[in-house]
């Protein structure tokens, strides 16, 4: 299955990345080849019913104890744009 131009554009939209037409054309070809290769796993079937992998089974939780995280000032230090203790984004509405 090669993926279509329309599907490539749709994935670009979902990924929130702006592409030029030339880039979409390039990714359409590359992703098509890669996905064709990925298709080889389609017919594999596991005898294991429970798909929760061992890794996720053995996660542990810590006690919910309040503690001090980083300060608001520190949290905003890396923000490209902030004002009066808030992250600033372009206007939404």
């Amino acid at each position, binding site marked *: 299955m090669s*993926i279509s131009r329309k*599907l*490539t554009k749709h*994935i*670009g939209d*979902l*990924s*929130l*990345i*702006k*592409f030029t037409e030339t880039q979409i054309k390039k*990714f359409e070809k*590359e*992703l098509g*080849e*890669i*996905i064709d*290769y*990925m*298709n*080889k*796993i*389609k017919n*594999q*079937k*596991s005898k*294991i019913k429970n*798909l929760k*992998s*061992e*890794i*996720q089974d*053995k*996660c*542990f*939780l*810590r006690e919910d104890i309040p503690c001090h995280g*980083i300060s608001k000032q*520190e*949290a905003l*230090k*890396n*923000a*490209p*744009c902030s004002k009066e203790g808030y*992250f600033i*984004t*372009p*206007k*939404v509405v």
Partner: protein
Amino acid sequence: MELENHSISTLHNLLIKKEIKSSEIVESVFEHISDSSLNCYITLFEDSARKKAKELDKKGDYPEPLTGIPIAIKDNICMKGEPTTCGSKILEDFIPPYNATVIEKLEKQGAIFIGKTNMDEFAMGSSTENSYFGPTLNPIDNDYVPGGSSGGSAAAVANKEVICALGSDTGGSIRQPASFCGIFGLKPTYGRVSRYGLVAFASSLDQIGPLAKNTQDIAILLSAIAGRDVKDSTSRDKEVPSFLHNLNSNIKGIKIGIPKEYFTEGLSDDVRVSIENAINIFKDLGAKTEQISLAHTEYAIATYYLIATAEASSNLARYDGVKYGYRRQKTENRKQKLKEMYEQTRKEGFGDEIKRRIMLGTFGLQTGYYDEYYLKAREVRDIIKSDFDDAFERVNIILTPTYPIPAFKLGEKIDDPLEMYLSDIFTVSVNLAGLPAISVPISPALIHKCGTNELPIGVQLIGRAFCEQDILNCAYAYETSNT
């Protein structure tokens, strides 16, 4: 005395005997860095490293094996107050407000941080060519890549620009560059080392691990960074022994499995001959070898790239130009819309390989394709893991080549992403199964004897979960048999 040639344990002994000072080791390392054109480092800590070494020398106390020893850190591991770029434009100016747990542990030991090393952007790549800060060169032959994504760390250790280093391994990113640069590199069991403060690529596969010049140094570093951490819910409460003190080169009777699926087409003659010779050395050391089967190996690449990219597309969604990192400022004389800012920021902030993998991951997770791709890959991951479980019923260690070919030339594979992915065939299964593995350099003399080229080749030893000591012992036996 060329201090940068020595191992951690030798330097530690010299420090204790007051025959050398930490400042002298630091100076010798910086001398090598200033003479180098390999581009191993993104950031150097010249002032703080010198200051810390002087303080330690003044006290004259070097209680831990790493006290006063220079170490380099891959630039995806957070260090408070120091840039952590992940080799990306989008994090070019990011200064973490906290330390990764491994940094806290190394600081407690008194290690001296020399700098942050170059890497493929967000650890996605096998050549360190995908760095916003330019490629790192292979120290053995500058026309070749050092491997990746921890190429800066591997090249720095091999070129004596540091004594040892940390890297991260999601699908081979410690072992493959170690193999290309002729050094040792270990990927610990998933959960052995805290991932807190490691910038996430694929959270169910990532592990931090050491790169060094010999097995003893790897053992020292692993003991220093391992252990359960309440800040990482996937880290495991397993005893952390002194891997160094437990090193044992007697491997008589150890059963080593050789998977037949790893010795098929695509394996270069150079690597095949070198690995066959390495197997003979293990036999001479008293190990018993037998052929085994990891029957679903051919599905590993597809499975790995579906899972890793799905996790990456989710993990990298946080880079939106709001909380940290690069933001595309409005350029046109009109109001910028939020979505447009996100899209432009990510377009300009990420390199092509990152975009490709985010797209691939998004594809596998989207409605209508999720069951067919992502969920199926999860299923096949379990099958691959059960192959290893079955094999470890019969053998203690699995031996494979680390990579199918020696280092390739800069630019040789960069335009063919699928070919680059396919070459990760010997390393990705280990991450899917969460197992520990080490890449051990085959001695240059042996490679020369085999009539192959002079580029380094690595042999990979895979162990049972949390049995790092077993693979370290085998590596140690092999290494000391060469000397």
